[in-house]
């Protein structure tokens, strides 16, 4: 039986194909349309995943949408009835869009895809929970979903056992940890549903001096992690903005303008909201452990992408083990909807847990074989060299301080590049973070880079509590790898200090968002890091997503080559083909991307 899961119309549209319970393919629409967080109907992804499954659209038995459109519309309508809502000026445009999209969703899906079969709907948080529990390695586990908002729910928890899932409790809109974090993202001048990870990256530069004030005025947090927001300070219910004037008053300032200088106060606010998020998540997780009695936890929803909070949860050892869906945001809802329908609705058994591999949950996008890449290179007249042992050659280049674009195998599903669409560099290099941020990624200098480390060597470099194959946990560097810094620096000056033997991936609080790489999960990438270790005695490299600021991660060899030529990357690897920047025709500096991709 073939099930096509779809998520769309909020942010990060995606589709996933599940055949007889096996995940065949999944991807986000943004990778094909080259429009970051594209929320339009994922027509391109559907074509791609069906191609991967060698199916036609009418071979699909059921299409499952990741939320219930009428429930969502009811929530949006109801929110206009609340007196805490802003004026009704947005009522007509919002409801008009909702009615058109939601009422016509069923027929729109059929019409867009020329599909004659069944269309079903699964609730938003059921989709999230299913995306976390069913692919996890646990036979039974508790689950916790935390995001902005679905239909009504913003937070849910429950348990999964074999193919059954049971929801226990929930927190409803407008009280939402995802929207709470998003409100601060907005206030700090970053884009909502996109810049949250920047707030997370900015937090260690500041001090949480607003912690008590926020806890006192903006949120009422109970011991069991449940909370309510003080809606006198937020305007996201029906307004155009996330926060209102009252919010600005308590911070004695207005929201930071986009692209303006980041001040110490911005950093302190970021630090405070991150600390509160950690606290809420820890209390919730303790409560879920107590209420469910389960030993394992599965996490999903946009807040589960907060790897700092995830790292803290893991470190506290509240659960024996935690599994986080790599596409924890709304994109993963497409996968969850399909899996929920198969396992819960149709009551189909899950495959034996020993068969579950991390690779099957993340490397789900399209791939391009050597013949296709060679054809592209030849037709485009791009000079290249072929290396049988490309991993060794790339390791040699990295050890020589070169920056390499690495394109290999199937594209990752979810927001992280995990060694198949990555830009790689030498983590030991002092200036690499600054250079890669400013010359390659064209993004803010404060943003940290993540390390990929051989799984079996991770404990020698980081205080790892577990493997982290999806780069979803932050761990501290081991004390013996840190370099004691006597200089007393503050704010962005903290970037100047060298904190460890691998400074390019060590954040200012001596932490790192680690990806552990095993041979089983990604053989080629593992071999590359192994070769690098043989040459340098260091099993750690920089891994950042293959894109420039505002651009979705590259999908095709063409995207990769275009991105390579626009940046100061030294080499590009497309499977076993090596492309040297020096061999390419000299082009005038291509600044087109600045118009093509809106800054995120």
């Amino acid at each position, binding site marked *: 039986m073939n099930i096509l899961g779809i998520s769309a119309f909020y942010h990060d549209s995606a589709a996933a194909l599940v055949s007889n319970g096996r995940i065949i393919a999944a991807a986000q629409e943004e990778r094909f349309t080259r429009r970051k967080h594209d929320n339009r109907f994922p027509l391109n992804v559907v074509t791609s995943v069906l191609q991967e499954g060698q199916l036609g659209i009418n071979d699909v038995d059921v299409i499952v949408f990741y939320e219930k459109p009428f429930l969502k519309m009811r929530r949006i309508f109801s929110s*206009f009835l*609340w007196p805490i809502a802003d004026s009704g000026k947005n009522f007509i445009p919002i409801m008009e869009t909702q*009615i058109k999209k939601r009422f016509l969703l069923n027929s729109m899906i059929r019409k867009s895809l020329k599909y004659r079969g069944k269309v079903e709907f699964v609730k938003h948080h059921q989709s999230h929970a299913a995306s976390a529990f069913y692919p996890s390695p646990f036979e039974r586990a508790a689950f916790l979903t935390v995001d902005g908002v679905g239909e009504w729910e913003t937070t849910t928890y429950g348990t999964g056992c074999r193919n059954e899932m049971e929801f226990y409790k*929930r*927190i409803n809109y407008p*009280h939402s940890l995802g929207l709470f974090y998003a409100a601060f993202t907005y206030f700090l001048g970053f884009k909502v549903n996109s810049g949250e990870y920047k707030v997370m990256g900015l937090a260690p530069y500041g001090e949480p001096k607003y912690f008590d004030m926020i806890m006192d005025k903006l949120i*009422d947090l109970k*011991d*069991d992690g449940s909370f*309510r927001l003080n809606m006198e300070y937020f305007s996201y219910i029906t307004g155009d903005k996330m926060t209102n004037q009252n919010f600005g008053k308590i911070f004695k300032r207005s929201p930071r303008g986009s692209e303006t200088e980041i001040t110490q106060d911005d950093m302190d606010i970021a630090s405070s909201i991150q600390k509160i998020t950690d606290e809420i998540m820890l209390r919730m997780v303790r409560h879920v452990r107590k209420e469910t009695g389960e030993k394992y936890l599965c996490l999903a929803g946009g807040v589960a992408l907060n790897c700092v909070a995830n790292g803290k949860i893991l470190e506290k050892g509240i659960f024996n083990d935690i599994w986080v869906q790599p596409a924890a945001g709304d994109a993963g809802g497409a996968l969850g909807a399909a899996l929920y329908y198969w396992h819960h609705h149709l009551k189909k058994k899950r495959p034996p847990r020993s068969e579950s591999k991390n690779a099957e949950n993340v490397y789900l996008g399209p791939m391009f074989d050597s013949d296709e890449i060679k054809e592209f290179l030849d037709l485009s007249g791009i000079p290249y060299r072929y290396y049988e042992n490309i991993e060794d050659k790339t390791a040699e280049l990295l050890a020589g301080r070169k920056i390499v674009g690495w394109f290999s195998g199937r594209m990752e599903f979810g927001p992280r590049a995990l060694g198949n669409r990555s830009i790689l560099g030498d983590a030991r290099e002092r200036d690499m973070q600054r250079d890669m941020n400013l010359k390659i990624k064209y993004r803010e200098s404060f943003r940290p880079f993540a390390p990929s480390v051989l799984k079996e060597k991770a404990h020698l470099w980081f205080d790892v509590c577990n493997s982290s194959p999806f780069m979803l946990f932050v761990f501290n560097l081991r004390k013996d790898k840190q370099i004691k810094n006597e200089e007393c620096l503050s704010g962005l000056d903290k970037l100047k200090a060298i904190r460890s033997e691998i400074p390019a991936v060590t954040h200012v609080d001596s932490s790192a968002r680690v990806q552990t790489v095993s041979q089983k999960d990604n053989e080629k990438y593992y071999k590359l890091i192994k070769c690098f270790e043989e040459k340098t005695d260091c099993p750690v490299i920089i891994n950042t997503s293959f894109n420039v600021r505002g651009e979705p991660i590259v999908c095709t060899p063409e995207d990769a080559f275009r991105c390579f030529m626009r940046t100061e990357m030294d080499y590009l690897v497309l499977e076993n083909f090596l492309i040297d920047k020096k061999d390419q025709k000299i082009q005038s500096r291509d600044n087109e991307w600045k118009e093509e991709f809106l800054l995120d």
Partner: protein
Amino acid sequence: MKILIKTVNVFLKIGLAVVYVLIVLPYRFSYKVFSKDKCRLTIDKSLDSYWEEK
């Protein structure tokens, strides 16, 4: 076809405006004036937990 879509859009807008005036505004007014219990919209320090049953 285009004229039909435009006509439907205009009627939809008018319909929504009517709903707003006849339902949304009176409801909001009565809620503000008569409802002492703001139920789950406001903070309630007396509660031990905000978790709701599914």
